[in-house]
């Protein structure tokens, strides 16, 4: 995310403030002393006194320089730290700040302002990312529904009509009809797959654990990737936003395993350690390539994770090769207090139906 530092800021092309202030002050003092001696009391100039005055002058010079160095350092130090932080700060990994300073100097005020600015930028970025991802999810939902309600229903009607026609076609056309039927069924199947990928229905309906089970099942069916699941019992119910993040990370990670790992098995784990819910997806494939740079999918996962205060790590899975994707979700922020999330969608008339 962070851009390369520009040429101008990277190489120092100036004399540091410290040397400039100390040098100018020392020069001024030197000139002042010489002028004082030469102009105000030229007659008192003698070889004896010159040595003593030279010592006094020298000591004064050293003192001035030392005092300057000390004072200017105090001002400049935080500025250097500020420059270093500004260079490395990364909004996708929020929380990097200058050490606390008091507003008793320009540098202190600058540090505080800089921290405030980082907080503001991080908040704005979080909000913008949240808006983009919300919009993306809403759009996906809309497309999935449209695919299902419009095209899917019409293809279903076509299939039913074909089934009717099948009984009446002359034998020589029968083969062609079956091919058309197969083509329509294939399209319907594709459409369904796309709709499901766009929108994890099971997540809305049945919650994270079931949705992950369905996800693994679908991967097995479609790409032949066999996923071993281990989901710890008694996990808390998360907010819908957090569930969606965990689900999307699992989906992206499994997609990557199917595409890049070169193996046919993966392991998905969801467990709780203290107040952190951890999702890990591990494969035993060829591992991360040399000089691996994250693609858009993984960056997207990271952004989603940051949004709910979670952290994402993609690392080599121990000595056996393979890759481990690990998502740590702090539970204090994302735990759902309601017992069953799906109940708030049920209307009173449905609740009253039991007789």
């Amino acid at each position, binding site marked *: 995310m962070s851009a390369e530092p520009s040429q101008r800021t990277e190489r120092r092309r100036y004399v540091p403030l410290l040397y400039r202030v100390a040098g100018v002050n020392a020069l001024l003092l030197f000139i002042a002393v010489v002028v004082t001696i030469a102009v105000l009391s030229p007659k008192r100039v003698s070889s004896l006194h010159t040595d003593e005055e030279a010592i006094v002058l020298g000591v004064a010079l050293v003192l001035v320089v030392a005092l300057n160095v000390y004072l200017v350092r105090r001002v400049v130090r935080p500025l250097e730290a500020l420059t270093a932080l500004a260079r490395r700060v990364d909004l996708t990994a929020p929380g990097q700040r200058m050490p606390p300073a008091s507003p008793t100097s320009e540098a202190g005020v600058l540090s505080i302002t800089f921290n405030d600015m980082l*907080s*503001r930028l991080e*908040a704005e970025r*979080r*909000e913008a*990312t*949240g*808006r983009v991802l*919300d919009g993306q*999810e809403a759009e996906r*939902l809309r497309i999935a529904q449209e695919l*299902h*309600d419009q095209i899917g*229903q*019409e293809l*279903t*009607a076509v*299939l*039913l*009509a*074909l*089934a*009717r026609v099948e009984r009446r076609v002359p034998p020589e056309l029968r083969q062609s009809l079956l091919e058309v*039927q197969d083509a329509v*069924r294939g399209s*319907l*199947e594709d459409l*369904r797959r796309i709709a*499901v990928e766009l929108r994890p*229905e*099971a997540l*809305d*309906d*049945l*919650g994270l*654990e*079931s949705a992950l*089970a*369905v996800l*693994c*099942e*679908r991967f097995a069916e479609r790409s032949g990737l066999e996923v071993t*699941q281990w989901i710890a019992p*008694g996990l808390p119910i998360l*907010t*819908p*936003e*957090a569930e969606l993040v965990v689900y999307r990370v699992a989906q992206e990670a499994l997609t990557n395993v199917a595409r890049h790992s070169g193996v046919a098995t993966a392991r998905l784990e969801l467990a709780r350690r203290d107040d952190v819910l951890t999702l890990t997806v591990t494969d035993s494939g060829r591992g991360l390539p040399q000089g691996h740079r994250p693609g858009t999918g993984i960056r997207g996962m990271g952004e989603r994770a940051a*949004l*709910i205060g979670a952290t994402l790590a993609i690392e080599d899975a121990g000595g056996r090769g393979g890759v481990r994707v690990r998502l740590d979700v702090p539970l204090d922020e994302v735990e759902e207090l309601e017992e*069953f999330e*799906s*109940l708030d*969608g049920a*209307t009173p008339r*449905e*609740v009253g*139906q*039991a*007789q």
Partner: protein
Amino acid sequence: MTAIHEHQAQVDSPAIAPDGSDSPVRVLVVDDHPAVRMGLRELFEDQPDFVVVAAVDSADAAMALAEREPIDVAVVDYQLGSRNGLWLSRKLKRLPRPPRVVIYSAYCDGPLAATSVVAEADGLVSKGGVGADLCEAVRAVAHGQVRLPTVPPALASALRRRLDAEEQAIFGMLLAGIPAAEISLMLSISSASLESRLWTMLRKLEALPTDSMAVRRARPHNGRRRGTPI
């Protein structure tokens, strides 16, 4: 089974045609999409052993009709606007002479198989199948068979975690194909109590219709809430 019967007298015979009898299967079609509804009606009308009693577009219309006329098999689209096919299935099963129920859905996967079991549906057929599969399933359930896909074990255990101990027992028995009447005997609970249990389970497990799904997702985003105070 092959003879064509069209006289009205057949309508007054028992709700489920016994095996080997040649009374036609009285089918009710419930689908809110006009083209699909029409397609189903025509497909069934073409079958010599089926009689289409009606093709309606909503759960309420289906209930009104089923209360008036005996139905052997209701072919119910899963998505029916505000009330879904599972709701209708449970309501139909409470009738004095309950019809057999086939859920006809685009997504015939594990979750719907599990919820169909709780809704006491007898069959679940994919919209992606050929017409002959659907007709075969209707015939099979009309003769007392069950046509539900199996629920994968990992999913079944994930779903069980959403239920309490007694509900888990009921769910397990339903998955094993034990009818509701026997379950209430085995657990020695009244049928009314089992009934309310099943509604609760369905609410916990049920795939909600799409409109409430959209409402649920439209809630403000966590990130947005946290972002505002700065």
